[in-house]
């Protein structure tokens, strides 16, 4: 079971200093583990950055890598989760041709059916935004693409929040007594 490949989400908190991202990704690189998505931003704690990293790997490996991440000086915490342990979302932007949109009714139907949002319209292009799981965001792209109206497409890496009602990640950041993460026994 430890050797089965799954999509894991790693959440890392570190000090906000130059060179941290390099150190975090190096732990994956040295094993040639390919990062699927990466989102880095300031956290709710001042001076602390939060990384959300997703990748396909085995529990055996991700357990060990997460421990090594947490060991790094200036990394405060590192955790790993499977998809059923988190809520996760991605944001996608679709730049569509306005003339195509106007001449093809199907396009606005797709927008409505998918609960996507129009955030800009001008005579040349229309920008649509959709937040959702990877699959939803990508299938919307495919639907637009089938109508040949896409000028540009971008999607973000995932952001994730832990489902467990008892887990409050940011509160425990500096707390030595709290069991540091699931990988710590």
């Amino acid at each position, binding site marked *: 079971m430890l050797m089965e490949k799954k999509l894991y989400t790693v959440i890392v908190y*570190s*000090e906000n200093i130059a*060179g941290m991202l*390099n*150190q975090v990704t*190096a732990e994956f690189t*040295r094993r040639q583990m390919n990062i699927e998505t990466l989102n880095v931003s300031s956290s709710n704690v001042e001076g602390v950055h939060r990384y959300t990293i997703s990748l396909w790997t085995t529990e055996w490996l991700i*357990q*060990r890598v997460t*421990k*090594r991440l*947490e*060991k*790094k*000086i*200036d*990394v*405060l915490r590192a955790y790993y989760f499977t998809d059923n342990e988190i809520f996760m979302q991605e944001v996608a932007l679709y730049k569509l041709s306005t003339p195509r949109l106007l001449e093809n009714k199907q396009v606005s139907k797709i927008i409505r059916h998918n609960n996507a949002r129009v955030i800009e319209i001008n005579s040349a292009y229309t920008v649509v935004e959709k937040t959702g799981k990877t699959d939803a965001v990508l299938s919307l792209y495919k639907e637009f693409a089938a109508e040949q109206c896409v000028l540009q497409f971008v999607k973000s890496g995932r952001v994730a929040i832990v489902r467990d009602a008892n887990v409050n990640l940011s509160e425990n950041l*500096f707390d*030595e*007594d709290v069991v*540091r993460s699931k*990988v*710590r*026994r």
Partner: protein
Amino acid sequence: MKKELITGGEALLRSLINEQVDTIFGYPGGSIIPVFDALYDHQKDFHQVLVRHEQAAVHAAQGYARSSGKVGVCLVTSGPGATNTLTGISDAMLDSTPVVVIAGQVSSAVLGTDAFQEIDLVGVTQPISKWSYQIRSAEDVAWAVSRAFYIASTGRPGPVVLDFTKNAQVSQVLYEPMKVDSVRSYVPYPKPNMDCIKEAADLINRAKRPFAVVGQGVELGEAHKELIAFLEKGGIPAARTLLGLSSLPSEHPLCMGMLGMHGNLGPNVNTNECDVLIAIGMRFSDRVTGKLETYAKQAKIIHLDIDNVEIDKSVPVDIPVLGDCKETLPLITELLNENCHKEWIATFGDLDKIENEKVIEKAVNPTDGPILMGEVARKVSEATGNNAILVTDVGQNQMFAARYFKYKLPHSIITSGGLGTMGFGLPAAMGATMGAPHRTVCYFAGDGGFQMNIQELGTIMEQKCPVKMIVMDNSYLGMVRQWQQLFYDNRCSWTPMCNPDFCKIAEAYGIPSRFVTDRSELDAAIKEMVETPGAFLLSVVVRAEDNVMPMMPLGASVCEMILE
């Protein structure tokens, strides 16, 4: 305290004094000249050691650190000076040695422009150091140096790199000493978990065949007494890893020898016979475990380590005891029943008998043929009353010396374990004479490794380091030749070697020496070496095609050692 306006370079030196640094190994160059200039006024504050190659500066700092328990310090220039330290930094990382490497860097204004002798040192050293940091302003110096020493020396020790830009060296700062004694993201000494301690003690109390495997963690934690108290109360036989050889004296009744690929038969075979395996400050290196799939599968495993990463890394552990073993060992000992496990211990003796007859006797007491490395090692050890510090290079010489030396005192083995760095020994031995000036330092090398940092004879001459150098001349890269013989059909590709007259080289440096080819001269030569004050080179022609035995071939289990 009154603040004083000084340069960043001067601030660095004040900060080093503040950390009780007394010795610096270094080599100057363009982008570190301001610091060396400041050192000119600090000749009384530091023992200043000009090495002959920056790689040697780090190995010397390692030898200094491992013999003294203090942090070793190196000071080098940017670019090639800095890249020359990479092998030493990696070695210190893998062998948990506290060193601080300070390198010059180009001015921050020209960073990233391929300026003369600019390399991205932080980028290059991040993966091979415990912490790596660029000092870009003089204001940063006091904090960075103190943090560097704190990180290098606490918890599981390791190398720290400070990349010091030239503008920070020359600009002025209102200096104030600083002491960093915590980093909020870093828990160097995890608090022992009492549930785990109790579980561990219970398990040991119920064990019929407990076995302790002990590593350098005991030496780093200065837990020698705590280890002995633990073993003696529980009547637990123990064996040591290569780096942990002096964590338990060779002659202690519960000491069963050495683990690993070229370790002793008893401890290796009995790893797969014990019912409870207690690992103490060791990391289950592949050179110790052999084939993981068959390693101690019959046993429950307790692992005492200060580093959470090591727990479950390669060997699944039943009871982890995270913490400093100086603290956790007594907590467990307290809960132990007194025990003796006589029959179990006797099984080690049975295996010893086999190894003695098939291997050891032949290696240390040969009667004819060329001199053997094993006999030289045993004789040198005895000639120093088994009180010396053994520093080795890498290869057959390392394994023979480690096996046949005897260890009485703590901190008596300095060898490159994790990285297996040829060329480590000579500078490390030089550093050890400065870290432990009252002890005899014996350096064992092969003819290959001796020549990998042979330029340090210059430093040894200049600094009058009393290193007893024993060079085992087999005219081969012997350890590789052994593998070629055993596993590559004896095709000795690139391993035979034509050697110079090592004594003549020593002579050029004014170092007394002896050349020995005949067994009848060996005792007298060793006596002369030990009795001659200062450095001495003993060049011994040994049997060319000797093999280190026993051996756990690559991919074999601990219980599958070959004896001949």
